[in-house]
């Protein structure tokens, strides 16, 4: 092994034998083994881990890893209609340029005395998100939108002192699993019926479920299945009448054109920032935001870090720090609010750069682009025999259900055939939403060109015609 041969390893400077000897002498120990004296022999591992020999050459390591990755086909090499929570939006060059700066990437929990830049950027991220969402407060991001919705519901539970939350039955099944797990056993999770034609919330059922135990009503705009929940104001009114909070999941890429949830009564807004300048990375690019009004009682329920701007002893000098740190588990263990630790801060940095670049005009142009393109895709799809798009009646933003039931083909078969043409068809919904039968969730972003859509339609027509 190279290390035993005394060649050293680029990552371990003090592996040099003479240095080790010098340091051991300073410690007054004869060997490194002596330093492990507290670990009893019964616990010592004396085997050899089955891990391949070191690739200590950077060139060979690159060759090895890139060789493995070569087996992937990325969305850059295909036409992708996949969404469902993770989106292939354009990532501006400057998001990568800044987001990958070593000063940010290698930082962690320094204070503004060492990491002033990190504080300012993330505070600016909170501020930009607050404007986009038309809310007062936004947190330092948590893991993803799932966690953001889970925590929002738990916050509502503590805020109201109540024990039940209600969510639509047709949210992402994975999100529902996360919510159920996170709420058990503290909050009961009730699912609400949906109108089968539009997907929108069944308000009669909502009325029946709402009661003195209801802490929160959750819904999304756009919803997981793509439709817009246009009854937001009515839902909020009903929830507020029952003394519950309204928690709305939002897609930030829509908010240049769609009314922000604050416009129809949301108390808490949550979601994912992956779409804002972060690569998908097989779902690794997520980051969860939570936003609310600046009400002390509500702010004190956040488990997350919240950065604030403040002054210093020098007149006129600005600085940043942690707001109400006493809330957190880092200050108060199990008596703090939920827990906090490493979240998704570097995705906030990219999102901050993204929103700075886009400005209000960019967000509006993006929103219009996505609306137009999705409507075009739906129009073209619905002209195909047996295809219904959107499969749920009503307006949508960048995703919608496509109903293939009348084509006689299963979505799985269609997607197999599309894949042969390097097209990633929409997510197959048949297992998760049996009532929709053979339907798929289609998404477009600005990265799918009209030419690609037109080619897709042609290929799909061929698949449907050749069955």
């Amino acid at each position: 092994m190279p290390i035993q041969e005394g060649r050293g390893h680029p990552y371990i400077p003090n592996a040099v034998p003479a240095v080790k000897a010098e340091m051991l002498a300073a410690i007054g120990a004869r060997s490194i083994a002596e330093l492990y004296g507290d670990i009893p022999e019964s616990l010592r591992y004396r085997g050899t881990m089955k891990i391949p020999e070191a690739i200590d050459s950077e060139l060979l390591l690159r060759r090895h890893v890139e060789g493995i990755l070569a087996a992937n086909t990325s969305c850059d090499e295909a036409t992708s209609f996949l969404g469902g929570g993770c989106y292939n939006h354009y990532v501006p060059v400057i998001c990568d340029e800044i987001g990958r700066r070593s000063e940010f990437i290698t930082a962690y929990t320094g204070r503004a005395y060492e990491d002033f830049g990190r504080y300012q950027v993330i505070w600016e991220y909170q501020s930009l998100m607050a404007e986009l969402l038309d809310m007062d407060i936004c947190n330092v991001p948590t893991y993803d939108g799932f966690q953001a919705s889970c925590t929002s519901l738990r916050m509502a539970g503590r805020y109201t002192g109540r024990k039940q939350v209600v969510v639509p039955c047709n949210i992402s099944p994975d999100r529902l699993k996360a919510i159920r797990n996170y709420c058990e056993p503290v909050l009961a999770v009730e699912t609400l019926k949906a109108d089968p034609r539009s997907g929108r919330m069944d308000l009669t059922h909502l009325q029946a479920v709402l009661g003195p135990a209801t802490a929160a009503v959750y819904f999304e705009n756009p919803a997981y299945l793509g439709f817009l929940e246009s009854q937001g104001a009515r839902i909020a009114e009903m929830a507020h009448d029952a003394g519950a909070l309204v928690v709305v999941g939002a897609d930030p890429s829509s908010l240049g054109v769609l009314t922000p949830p604050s416009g129809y009564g949301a108390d808490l807004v949550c979601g994912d920032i992956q779409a804002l300048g972060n690569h998908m990375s097989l779902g690794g690019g997520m980051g969860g935001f939570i936003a609310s009004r600046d009400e002390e009682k509500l702010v004190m329920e956040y488990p997350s870090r919240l950065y604030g701007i403040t002054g210093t002893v020098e007149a006129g000098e600005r600085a940043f720090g942690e707001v109400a740190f006493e809330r957190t588990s880092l200050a108060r263990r199990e008596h703090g609010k939920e827990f906090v630790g490493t979240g998704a801060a570097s995705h906030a940095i990219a999102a901050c750069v993204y929103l700075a670049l886009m400005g209000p005009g960019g967000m509006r142009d993006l929103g219009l682009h996505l609306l137009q393109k999705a409507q075009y895709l739906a129009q073209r799809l619905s002209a195909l025999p047996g295809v219904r798009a959107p499969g749920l009646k009503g307006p949508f933003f960048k995703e919608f259900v496509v109903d293939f039931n009348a084509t006689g083909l299963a979505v799985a078969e269609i997607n197999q055939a599309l894949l042969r043409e390097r097209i990633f068809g929409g997510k197959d919904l048949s297992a998760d939403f049996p009532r929709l039968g053979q339907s798929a969730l289609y998404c477009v972003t600005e990265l799918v060109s009209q030419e690609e859509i037109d080619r897709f339609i042609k290929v799909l027509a061929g698949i449907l015609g050749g069955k």
Partner: protein
Amino acid sequence: MDTRRTAKVRNHFHQAKWDEELLFELHKPGERGLVVAPVEPGIAAAVGDGLAALPAGMVRQRPPALPEIGQMRIVKHFMRLSQENLGGDLNIDIGQGTCTVKYNPKVNDVLAGNAKLAQLHPLQDPRTLQGALQVLHTLDLYLREISGMDRFSLQPASGSAAILNMVSIIQAYHKDRGEAGTRDEIITTIFSHPSDAAVAAVKGFKVITLMQNDDGLATVEDLRKAVGPRTAGMLVTNPEDTGIFNPRIAEFVQVVHDAGGICGYDQANANGLLGITRARSAGFDMCFFNLHKTFGTPHGSGGPGSGALGVTGALAGFLPVPLVEHDERGYFLDTDLPKSIGKTRAFYGCVQVALKAYAWIRALGAEGLREVAEVAVLNNNYLLEKIKRIRGASAPFAPGRRRIEQVRYSWEQLFKDTGVTSEDIALRVADFGLHMWASHHPFIVPQPFTIEPTESYSKEELDEYIGVLTQVAEEAYTHPELVQTAPHRSVCHRIKHEDLDDPARWAITWRLFQRKQKVAGLSAARGPLADPSPQGCARQGHRVPEGR
């Protein structure tokens, strides 16, 4: 060849200070940072502007008040802010003890930025993801070797998220055995990470915390008194943040097992143990590694990280879905786990982090991993020997014993002698381009600081850090005001925490800043301060411990 490198204290260091505006102060109507591609004319012709299809109430009436700024000014803004950040590549970042801030190989960032990973959608057909799934599956196999566990999930996005998964599994395990309501207590130790206690409480468990003895360790005797028919499980770190390895850890696990509970090992401090001892050897049912600590992936200013969670075969069925499996047809995602706790994060976790950890392990091999551990322990004990000799510093608990890979030290004597606090020292250390952190909960060690050198720093860098602590300690004795008014060469001076804790004045966003500047005279307004008294400003970021 004689070595040319020597350690020095950087007395002429000064951090970059740009006095950069807030992003919103750069607003200039009409400037653009980026132009979004319009849709093709054919699309516009077919559907119009797209808005007509929306219900009136759903169209945003007032555009978001985002600033408008030209592209170069935006780049400059963020470049300046990046210069005002030390991060691990500039700092000798051993002062964030418990955080394992080590070298993050640049090549791994390049590999994770490869479009063949970065541009993968998680819902693609697994046949188009074979490379990525191979990485995830193989990393699972390597982590099994390192821990002795039978199965790993890479879904948890951080150490705390891994704890959430462990607690969820404890809950599901007892529910599966028909003991859901009766086993409602989780035991932890005071020097385990605060999240071990906090997450247990989130999931409705009563938390029982074992306190330390004179050696800084919880005792088996206290544990025996704590267990019973209500015991659901135990979550512990070992070594804890004191760096002292608990030699009776296997007995701890046995006592909890005998009481019917299951045990989760928080391996946040695993960096000194790779190839030395394995979670399975002590009998643990579960363990997790922070890939962003031990396995060399960057901390990202606070994430994304990864809390790779390993379990025994008996608990594998409870892991979150999906698991990456392999058969003769290739790699695939298995969602068929009837007892699974479900999902705790979207999709498959922080895959880009997992890839970096995979590359890090491959760069080191089995022998290299062990070398990492041994050199981390060597570095730590070298620092311990030197820091103990600094005037006013000490290493509480277990005198004379070796520590694994970090130590929680104390400036108690220095404080008694001079009135200078650990917080003061931390702020003065910033004047030398370094970071010293006054530690998180528990606040048991008076005037604490925690140092964790890892394997990454050369002897001269460790000596530099020691040199700075030595000089600052001497300053505390000879010129305490110099330390008590620090920092002097940082981006900013002592921060006023009052604004941050007062609901009338906290300004979490630009819009609140504008609003409260007018109402409450927020001190961050440019111009004279309302209350610049040193007493008000010297307040510590970390408060007095709560009574327990």
